[in-house]
């Protein structure tokens, strides 16, 4: 599409495209819309993000694993719920599920026994539940006796927690933690 009437700024076009999309848009897709370079799109996204941070705006720019997306501000939730009730509202994850997920996220691929060693409790039920919710997946088998299943997190995991990637999760006081190994980077 030609941009003959170049009256709109890049961030305005970005806002329009993101408004229209039901899914996160990648930098490449946004380049296509705005007909500018990736660097300019990134700059535009930065300006849009900043503009949306103002108090008189109801949306916010989300940086997702798959790209960028507009969402409503958390502060608006209580008001929006009056009209837009969530049709499916999954129960929040249990403490056990969250702990197990944290371990898998950082130590993947990891076996059930290894998780149980860290947590000191059985995790069969938790693993079952996490698999069902597609937050983790079986990622092959470990070499060795019994060839136990290995578990890893899924893209759905990142989506569910609104993470761009696993490094978003890393604790700031990581250096104080001994016994933590591996950077937990996935793929």
């Amino acid at each position, binding site marked *: 599409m030609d941009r003959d009437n170049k009256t709109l700024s890049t961030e305005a076009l970005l806002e329009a495209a993101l408004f*229209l*999309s*039901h*899914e996160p848009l990648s930098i490449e897709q946004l380049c296509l819309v705005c007909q500018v370079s990736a660097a300019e799109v990134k700059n535009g996204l930065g300006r849009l993000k900043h503009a949306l941070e103002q108090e008189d705006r109801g949306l*916010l720019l*989300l940086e997702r694993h798959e790209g960028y*997306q*507009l*969402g*409503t*501000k*958390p502060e*608006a*939730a209580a008001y*929006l719920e009056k009209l*837009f009730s969530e049709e499916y*509202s999954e129960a*929040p*994850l249990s*403490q*056990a599920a*969250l*702990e197990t*997920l*944290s*371990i898998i*996220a*950082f130590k993947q691929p990891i076996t059930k*026994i290894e998780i*149980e*060693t*860290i*947590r*000191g*409790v059985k995790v069969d039920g938790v693993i079952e539940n996490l698999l069902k919710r597609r937050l983790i997946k079986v990622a092959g088998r470990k070499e060795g006796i019994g060839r136990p299943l290995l578990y890893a997190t899924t893209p759905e995991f990142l989506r*569910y*927690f*609104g*993470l761009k990637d696993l490094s978003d*999760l890393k*604790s700031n*006081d*990581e250096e104080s*933690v*001994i*016994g*933590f190994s591996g950077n937990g980077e996935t793929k």
Partner: protein
Amino acid sequence: MAPTGKKENGSLLMPKAGDKDAYFIRLPVFEGPFELLYYLIKKEEINIWDISLAQITEEYLNYLRTMQKLSMDPAGNFLVMAANLLYLKSKMLLPKQPPQEVIQSEEDAFFFGSKEELVRHLLEYSYFKTIALKLKQREAEQKKIFLRSPDQPKVVIVHKQSSLYPYSFEVLVKTFQKLQQKGKAKREEKAFFTFTEETTLLDKINAVLKSIRKIAAKKFYMEKLLEREGKREMILTFFALLELTRRGKIYLNQKTLFGKIQISVPARRSGEHQSEA
């Protein structure tokens, strides 16, 4: 037994406010021994490396005793940990022995041969505790951010849809009529035989035979024959084919289940012999 007394805030037993009777006791429920240990250490607000094994063991056992008092059965792994703590404690009380007795039983993952090992493990555990907390916060946060629902139909760009506007109703009617005529012409040219309502099975047989003979060289499919025919015609054609097959005038061949049915004409000589037999 209840660790009241010297440390008020450190008590595991939390009597309900204003209630002298200990009937209402809230005992924090821990999922595993590490969670309990983690809780006990965190409560002390001290560096995990500085924990006093004696104190922590004492508190740990107190918790187990309280559980029993409330007729809750501590799970086996709690008891394993208790034994482990007592082992470590007793080891510290004994004069240092030459470090020959490292009983590292591989199969027991919950056994710690030294305090350092235990602390190391607790540190790792506590790290994941903080990550879990982070995840919990993010989860709550995400639940408050609403997105456009992904299962909605694709966005219709109104501008593109309006391209029908320049065409009036008349244009549409004319286009429709043109299409209809085109279809009619096609139907006429495509149909292999046309009939009046009075077509008999014999007429049909002859017509079918004629059209098959005409294109005998090519592969000929039954579907082709039935194409663009009315219901009556279709039935007649079908009967005609059955009759011709019975008489050995044509062969019907279907290679696969529900596949196309190929019609072929047997070689003249043999075909006639067969039909006479």
